[in-house]
């Protein structure tokens, strides 16, 4: 079995920063990422854009450009990068199951840093499975990786920094936006958190985005309380309701976004110990100050350990790498302290903006107004009503509801429905989300074929 000192899973900002630092200090580092190039979601295709589509940086913006330096340093480091590699298993003994070019293999790592980032919070609305309904992140990925933009005026619906960033990018690229439907109200609760967010530069950037969007003449409709995607076989229109009344916009493309959550699929599958983050309304691994989990030798960096954003993620990655270097005897305690102090300070400065953002864009209650007919599990086509019925038949938690309805049994393994199913159960039974718990996630966390597993090396 192949082995390494340190395996880093995910080549986004946290993974790149962690691998670069650890490899520069002499560790044998291997980095796995499913994508063809480093960058993760936030800096997706940063190398190609920097080299071949430099002019696109004009609309992709400053914060995206920042990824280029990270990627350059990562490529220049001795870390071994394995793109196009799917990690489908991590065991507590730090054996890792990978799949590359149709070949499955197990590798043994001395230490593991999990940097699997975030995913967009799945929030079902009626009609969200229609072709023409996608996520804001999906559309931004297309803009970065393929310079693709909506063919017709697009509707963006939801809230959060990523939504406004994409809107500003579209405005800058001359792409037509039919409307932004901003869900929920901007709450007063955000006010006490303004100062740390201002100091971190977050508010300044946010205001600049909003200014750019307004200057682009985009119609922003606020206080949207209900959304529905309409159409037969394809999206034809978006119907919405605000506190003032209802409206309907004809469009072939609706992009949804309700913030991001830690991508806990891998950390749950190991399983590491997790806790419910009430503020961000998602599960995240329980970590110490150095990012160590409850399992010896397995640490988590960046958004996979709790949402902090791209800049925080890079610092978090270096902090976790420093801990690995200390643990493996590559740096002493004093050197560690000195280096870690700088990273920790920078990390915390970026994290300081989160309470403001979390309060400004509070996660919607997925269960509150979900109609019985709305699909919750996209894979197995299970509705909110079926989940409620399963609860009434005695299913006390997500795993029983899964057995009963097949919700969460499809290929996405509950990534899209897990939080919604739990929220429905919590509401029906009067339990808290942490009492209700989550699906037991089982490897492989990404499908592999019977033939690939049979030929496991």
């Amino acid at each position: 079995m192949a082995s390494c000192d340190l395996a880093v899973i995910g080549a986004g900002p946290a993974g790149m920063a962690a691998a670069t630092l650890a490899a520069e200090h002499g560790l044998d580092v291997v980095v796995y990422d499913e994508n063809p190039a480093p960058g993760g979601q936030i800096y997706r295709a940063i190398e190609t854009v920097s080299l071949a589509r430099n002019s696109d940086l004009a609309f992709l913006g400053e914060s995206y450009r920042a990824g280029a330096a990270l990627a350059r340093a990562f490529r220049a480091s001795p870390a071994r990068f394995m793109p196009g590699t799917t990690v489908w298993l991590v065991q507590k003994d730090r054996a890792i199951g990978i799949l590359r070019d149709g070949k499955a293999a197990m590798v043994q790592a001395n230490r593991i840093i999990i940097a699997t980032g975030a995913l967009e919070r799945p929030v079902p609305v009626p009609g969200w499975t229609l072709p023409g309904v996608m996520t804001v992140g999906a559309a931004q990925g297309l803009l970065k990786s393929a310079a693709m933009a909506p063919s017709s005026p697009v509707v963006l619906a939801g809230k959060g920094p990523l939504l406004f960033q994409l809107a500003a990018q579209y405005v800058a690229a001359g792409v037509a936006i039919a409307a932004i439907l901003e869900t929920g109200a901007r709450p007063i609760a955000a006010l006490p958190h303004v100062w740390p967010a201002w100091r971190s530069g977050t508010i300044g950037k946010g205001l600049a985005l909003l200014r750019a969007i307004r200057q682009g003449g985009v119609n922003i409709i606020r206080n949207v309380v209900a959304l529905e995607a309409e159409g037969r076989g394809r999206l034809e229109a978006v119907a919405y309701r605000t506190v003032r009344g209802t409206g309907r916009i004809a469009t072939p493309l609706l992009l949804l976004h309700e913030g991001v959550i830690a991508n806990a699929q891998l950390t749950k599958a190991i399983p590491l110990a997790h806790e419910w983050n009430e503020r961000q309304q998602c599960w995240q691994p329980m970590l110490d100050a150095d990012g160590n989990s409850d399992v010896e030798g397995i640490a988590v960096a960046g958004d996979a350990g709790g949402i902090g954003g791209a800049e925080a993620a890079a610092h978090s990655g270096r902090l976790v790498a420093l801990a690995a270097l200390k643990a493996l005897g590559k740096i002493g305690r004093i050197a560690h302290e000195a280096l870690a102090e700088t990273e920790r300070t920078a990390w915390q400065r970026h994290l300081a903006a989160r309470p403001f953002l979390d309060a400004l864009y509070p996660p919607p209650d997925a269960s509150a107004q979900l109609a019985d007919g709305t699909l919750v599990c996209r894979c197995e086509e299970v509705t909110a009503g079926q989940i409620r019925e399963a609860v009434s038949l005695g299913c006390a938690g997500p795993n029983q509801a899964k057995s009963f309805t097949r919700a969460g049994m499809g290929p996405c393994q509950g990534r899209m429905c897990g939080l919604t199913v739990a929220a429905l159960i919590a509401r029906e039974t009067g339990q808290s989300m942490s009492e209700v718990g989550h699906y037991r996630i089982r490897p492989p966390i990404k499908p592999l074929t019977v033939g690939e597993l049979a030929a496991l090396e």
Partner: protein
Amino acid sequence: MSLFRRLHEDGPGDAMTVTITVDGVALQARAGESVAAAVLASSDPTSRAAPVGGAPRAPYCMMGVCFDCLMEIDGETNRQSCMVIVREGMMVKRMARPKAVTP
């Protein structure tokens, strides 16, 4: 009409054209694009029929988590087309609903 268009349709990247076949129809894509991206820029953005109800689905998350972009690629069923980069001559099929199982 397609859902997405390429911003640089007439740009210097034209030499980078790759031809794939989707359900028997030739489709021009750009080197480096995912199969799902190429499909979204085509006149039919759908990737598959939902396995239970049979309704059409299209790529949704474009980052490998939603599994709605499952397609048959070069004879392998249920592949995540958003994670597969186009290659010259690639044979792609939309996934139909599996035939009903009896009894």
